[in-house]
């Protein structure tokens, strides 16, 4: 992982959590759902209740990696007139009020359409930490590698249970900030248990030299957070937070975040006090 030439906001946020003896909590919210203002308020609530990093998703017409809950939310955001450049308002709104590192998660075509350089420049200006790119692999990322270096942005690529050792190495080498380990073969959505594959993916990423690996997909409660915190540097929660804002607004996001953060302490099965 190349961290030398740039100060990585994501890495700093994860390292701060590590210094406190715990894993980092990363919360996902789709921009513009139910409104831009609500996304900013929910992002601030995430940060104030224990999230170290915040992932803001850009609603997209063809979200192939998302399950039904996130699809429904992003489809509604688009129907309400969300436009891509509003994501910078959301990032700015959160970074100006909190210390959390704010990343944007986006399918690649909206970035291509705006222009990779312009998108990167505006994201950096808004205080963003970098991009998580679910349908961009390092093989196709030449333009993004260049722009992310130019603007000092983190590039978070995904690794999966199906990644070969060669691909794992290539992806870890191309990533900055952290590596996103997909816990299972599937799309986003809450699941009752975290697949055992997740631990193996994280171990493989560590073996390939990744200093920070965060696990996402299917994580929805403090018990699962605790399980993952035992072996990964960070835990990513998406669908459960989207369901929370859908059903209970910003207050529900705050409450869920607070609950999730109780699972972050290292040491399996120990409560925060015991740890």
């Amino acid at each position, binding site marked *: 992982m190349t961290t030398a030439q740039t100060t990585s906001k994501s890495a700093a946020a994860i390292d701060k959590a590590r210094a406190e003896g715990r894993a980092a909590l990363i919360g996902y919210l789709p921009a513009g759902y139910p409104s831009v203002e609500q996304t900013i308020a929910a992002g601030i609530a995430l940060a104030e209740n224990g999230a170290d990093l915040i992932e803001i998703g850009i609603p*997209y*017409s*063809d*979200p*192939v*990696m998302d*399950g*039904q809950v996130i*699809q429904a939310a992003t*489809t509604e955001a*688009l129907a309400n007139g969300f*436009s*891509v450049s509003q994501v910078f308002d959301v990032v700015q709104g959160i970074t100006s009020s909190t210390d959390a590192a704010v990343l944007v998660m986006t399918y*690649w*075509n*909206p*970035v*291509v*359409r*705006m222009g990779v350089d312009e998108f990167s420049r505006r994201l950096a200006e808004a205080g963003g930490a970098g991009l998580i790119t*679910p*349908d*961009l*692999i390092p*093989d*196709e990322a030449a333009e993004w590698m260049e722009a992310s270096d130019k603007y000092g942005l983190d590039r978070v*690529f*995904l*690794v*999966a*249970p*199906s*990644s*070969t050792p060669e*691909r794992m190495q290539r*992806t870890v080498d191309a990533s900055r900030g952290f590596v996103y380990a*997909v816990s299972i*073969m*599937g*799309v986003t959505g809450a699941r009752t248990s975290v697949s055992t594959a997740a631990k193996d993916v994280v171990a493989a990423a560590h073996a390939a030299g990744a200093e920070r690996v965060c696990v996402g997909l299917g994580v929805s409660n403090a018990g699962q957070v605790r399980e993952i915190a035992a072996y990964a540097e960070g835990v990513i929660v998406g669908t459960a937070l989207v369901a929370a804002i859908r059903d209970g607004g910003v207050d529900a996001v705050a409450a869920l975040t607070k609950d999730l953060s109780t699972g972050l302490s290292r040491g399996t099965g120990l409560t925060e006090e015991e740890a």
Partner: protein
Amino acid sequence: MAEAPSGNADNETDNNAAEAFLQGGSLKHAPGPYFGSYGGRWMPESLIAALDELEETFNKAKEDPEFRAQIADLNKNYSGRPSLLTEAKRFSQHAGGVRIFLKREDLNHTGSHKINNVLGQALLAKRMGKTRVIAETGAGQHGVASATAAALMGLECVVYMGAEDCRRQALNVARMELLGATVIPVTSGSQTLKDAINDALRDWVANVDNTHYLLGTAAGAHPFPAMVRYFHEVIGEEARAQILEQEGRLPDAVCACIGGGSNAIGIFHGFLDDPSVKIYGFEAGGDGVDTGRHAATITLGKPGVLHGARSYLMQDDDGQTIESHSISAGLDYPGVGPEHSYLSDIGRVSYEPITDSEAMESFRLLCRTEGIIPAIESSHALAGAIKVGQRLAAEAAASGGTAQDKIVIVNLSGRGDKDVATAAEWFDLLDKDSAESEIGKEGEQL
């Protein structure tokens, strides 16, 4: 060539560009992953291993005499290949008097070119030890073809189809179910073909261990564009050999319709390295390219990434995919195969839009002049051939020749049985209260 060529000057430019390119090498058998700056793999990491496995299996298979023999046997004894090359003498009179030949993919088993690809991919699925295939379908043609191949080879088959399309094409849903497939109505996004592809990809990510995604067109992530073309190359190879045998010369032009572009790339491939042959792809112009209701991806789209490939794409200023519109469900897709984008940029193939009205006029014309009911998809190619024929006739006249000296081959990619309700409604042939009238009305509103 995004603009419709309108005369000799443009055609000459095409020719020069193609010749200039050919000096640098062949355009045939382009292996991917890239076609110029198009193609590639804009896909989740989770699926890359499966794409690698598919690529490796495909590359080995096409060098394996046993696999080639299996394909040849299925083509001959199951699909009914070679398909005929039929001269359309009465239809030709409406195309400036040039001679038009139809490559009769409509005569294949299941009624279209689609069978070429599904048989090849189903064989690959078996080679990979997969027991289940999934497919997307718009009106149901590729779904029916996939269900057919799955039944033949003993594979489980699941077809994703937009919920609205399921209702409109209830008979095709029944066909797939008769063939043993499960049809899953897609209710996400715009509930159209592109969303059916999205849901198929979601299924594939979750079930990639035992499942092959049998993509229906020459689009998507590598190796799909090059692989799907490979299975359709037989169209162009046959057509080239047949015209040489029947007429002793190459055609002046080749025409095909373009949705994702699989039938087109199949026939084009046979002629890409023949600079004297002009090649035309006809996109769905819907209500007209100035109405916003069309599927003319190359004519009006901009490069972007969708469903795994960089290619021309119908998208808004934010990069969101725009819904396409066409009377023909098979052309109603906002993307296009990456090799077509490349062939357009280098000027080897000219892409032009044909409106619903133009296509339907040609549909009726072929029915009445040749006794052949074409698919509405293929009718776009027929309408285009009329325009090309008239231009060639004018060229011939200008140089002191006759239109009869000019030959145009049209890929008649499918038969129109599936489109009878839509056509009957379009031409107002139905009793207003009939059930068919209701179905046709829905089809027209596609």
